[in-house]
């Protein structure tokens, strides 16, 4: 180790597998917010990494619109673009914090899609999610079950008790609340009847309940015999012992990355359950724990996280956002590939993603502001990109690039492009 120490503290730490305090602060920002904006790690330097985590958990950075503000937006023309454009602005805002992180998480967990619902319906659902993103899971699930976009997306709208549509009944158990091993085909049939009777008015998006079309006779659902409706079905699902672990695991995969150990899952699901499925106490238990800070790079960044990170580096005020980018990267909000949302796996760092991300970078230009602010040196570029403790091969690649490219502007371009396509920048 003497030799490694002689190479300098940065390299030594990297080999020892113990991230520097800045690397840990950057990690906390990437997971609890959506990305690190330049300067945010530095602003946390007064706090040790664990205290930085608590600081990020404690910030109030929710964007919640009033009913009037929500109603004021016009979706009559290019509704998709309006919706995506508004959301993209929010996602890349340097002030976007835990509330944005969890709003995005819930959209990927309780999916709905423009493939079946209108932009205005998705807009309203988006604000429903915003209201509950850090609130209570049961409230969120109750409301989204009879949300117009969801009723269209999973065919609850118009489902009649005598011949019910099973789509939502299955997915609410399989994907949203319980897990594929925790429901039966019989559960689907009964829940579909309990959830029947809802209608949506296409024009006004008003939701109404039609008792005539609801299944009114008693049925046995998960051991209980009674007359069921949407509220009692969802309550029964939320009361199920499988609910807290299922939702906890889903959040864990995003916030911590990977799968929790059985003990840790039990512990966290216990916190969630004891707090009546309140989301904030679960997040605090998850992040304010030594395990969280050690989980650096435990999963790839999603294409959206990568994109938001890229915009942060180039400067949100200087980049002309194009919602189409996310479609190209296979991660467009409001267009999940299917009802399970976007999977977290190594496809996010595949050759395909490398090609697409680099294509996208080729269409960007550096702003004068960035050219003035950042020296064309490897250290400055890495710090600007919040890349701390990079691997020797990454550093060597950047060192060589700048040696071969002494011309200032083209050198800065080259370094930033390499930093944004580096393996480290591809990891969360």
């Amino acid at each position, binding site marked *: 180790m003497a030799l490694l120490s002689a190479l300098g503290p940065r390299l030594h730490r990297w*080999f020892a597998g113990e991230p520097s305090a800045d690397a840990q602060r950057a990690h906390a920002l990437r997971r609890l917010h959506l990305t690190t904006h330049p300067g945010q790690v530095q602003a946390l330097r007064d706090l040790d990494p664990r205290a930085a985590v608590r600081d990020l958990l404690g910030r109030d950075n929710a964007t919640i619109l009033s009913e009037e503000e929500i109603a004021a937006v016009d979706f009559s023309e290019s509704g998709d673009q309006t919706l995506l454009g508004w959301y993209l602005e929010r996602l890349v805002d340097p002030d976007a914090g835990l509330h944005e992180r969890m709003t995005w998480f819930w959209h990927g967990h309780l999916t709905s899609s423009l493939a079946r619902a209108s932009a205005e319906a998705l807009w309203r659902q988006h604000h429903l999610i915003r209201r509950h993103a850090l609130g209570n899971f049961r409230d969120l699930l109750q409301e989204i079950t009879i949300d117009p976009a969801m009723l269209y997306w999973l065919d609850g709208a118009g489902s009649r008790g005598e011949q019910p549509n*099973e789509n939502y009944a*299955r997915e609410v158990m399989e994907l949203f609340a319980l897990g594929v091993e925790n429901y039966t085909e019989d559960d689907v049939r009964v829940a579909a009847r309990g959830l029947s009777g809802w209608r949506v008015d296409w024009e006004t998006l008003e939701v109404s309940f039609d008792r005539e079309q609801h299944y009114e006779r008693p049925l046995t659902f998960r051991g209980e015999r009674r007359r069921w409706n949407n509220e009692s079905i969802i309550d029964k699902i939320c009361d199920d012992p499988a609910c807290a672990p299922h939702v906890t695991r889903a959040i864990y995969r995003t916030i911590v990355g990977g799968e929790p150990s059985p003990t840790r899952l039990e512990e966290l699901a216990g916190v969630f359950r004891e707090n009546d499925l309140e989301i904030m106490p679960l997040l605090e238990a998850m992040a304010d724990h030594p395990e969280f800070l050690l989980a650096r790079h435990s999963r790839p960044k999603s294409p959206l996280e990568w994109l938001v990170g890229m915009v942060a580096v180039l400067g949100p005020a200087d980049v002309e956002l194009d919602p189409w980018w996310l479609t190209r990267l296979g991660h467009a909000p409001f267009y999940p590939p299917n009802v399970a949302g976007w999977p977290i796996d190594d496809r996010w760092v595949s050759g395909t993603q490398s*090609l697409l991300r680099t294509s996208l970078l080729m269409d960007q230009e550096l702003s004068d502001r960035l050219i003035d602010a950042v020296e064309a040196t490897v250290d400055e570029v890495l710090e600007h990109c919040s890349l701390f403790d990079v691997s020797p091969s990454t550093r060597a690649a950047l060192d*060589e690039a700048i040696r071969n*490219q002494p011309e200032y502007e083209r050198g800065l371009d080259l370094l930033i492009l390499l930093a944004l396509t580096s393996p480290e920048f591809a990891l969360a």
Partner: protein
Amino acid sequence: MSRRSVLGATAGVLGGGAAWYVTRDRAPWPSLDGSPGATTDEPAASGTDAAAAGEPFQSIVNAAPLEDRTLVLIELQGGNDGLSTLVPYGDGRLADLRHNVAIDPEELIVIDDQFGVNPNLAAMHDQGVAYLQGVGVPDPGGSHFGMEQRWWAGAAEGNALPHTGFLGRVCDQLDVGAPVTGVSLGGGNTPALISAKAVTLGLPDRDAGWYLTNEDPWFRSLRTGWVGLAAESPDDGTSAKAARRGLRTAIDFADVISGITEVEVPRYEDSGDIGESLAVASVLLGADLGVRVIHVPIGGFDTHSDQRGTHDNLLRQISNAVAGFRTDLADLGLGDSTLIATTSEFGRRPEQNDNGTDHGSASVAMLAGPVVPGLHGETPSLTDLDDDDNLVATVSMGEYYATLAAWFDIPATEVLDVANAPLTDLLR
């Protein structure tokens, strides 16, 4: 040049025209070194010489050399309704089960007094299609994701899924070190193509990678930088390794795509996204780059509601796409060496809901190319249904996949966990 980055400046010049398509009028298809795509010792089988000389292509039954054989697998995502693909109109039960979803027998392309083909499949049907009935798994589930996983992984039982995909393992068997052996077109990456050693790639976008072949010194520096970034570091975690592998694949792909220019799309009339994907497939196969397996996903088959219009549109697009594709293959002399086959995670329930169908089990697979056209397999009963009121499969996924493997002379035991026997009389 203004004080602007080369990223933007060069993209403007190069971004538009640079892609890897071959134009239609540039036959014969060139290989990378500019020589004709045909293997010189098998000119008759590849047909390139004949095509170049303007002679009509002559079908050579059963004569495609093993090393020339390729597979194009079209995945019908969402669960294709087999009963509206190959319609058992002679069974009076069908009309009882489906009062407004069944196709009017008078519209069908009649096969015999029992069966008719969906009229939207006319273009494809006229060129010869093998319809394999009753394809499914012994103990089906109702979940898209559970069943897709089984089909992607090639594990009929759904327990102990292998890490690789069925097509990925086929690629491993076919791997001779080609830069890319398996490609997914139109949907990005797919678990079906996850391989152990062969390189596989998903291409959602047609002009990915133009910058990889640019010879400007700046772009060369960039490429050198990427080679450096792709080099492993001793302490790489799993995700970092995957990220470096992704970069490596992108760089290798550059070698494949150099020398190929643009193809025009849309190419096949009224053929939707799948028509674009198959147009690209014809180019990849015609250019003889070592690609042996092409996966083409097409979504939208989850027809819980408004089934007729949706399903008819999808089948018509597939039919037009496959018919155009096969015409191109014949022109390229690849008609007998390219097997086209479909999969779907499940069929639909025989009994309809309001105006759609819920998740079912067995469905109909379609095969084209070197196949024996007509009906194959045993017809599932519309009366003896399983516990979920779904069809009982008569051909297992394992038998079907073993048949696709047999096309490449790969024993089922090499790519499946059960030694299924391939179906006889299906391929010719």
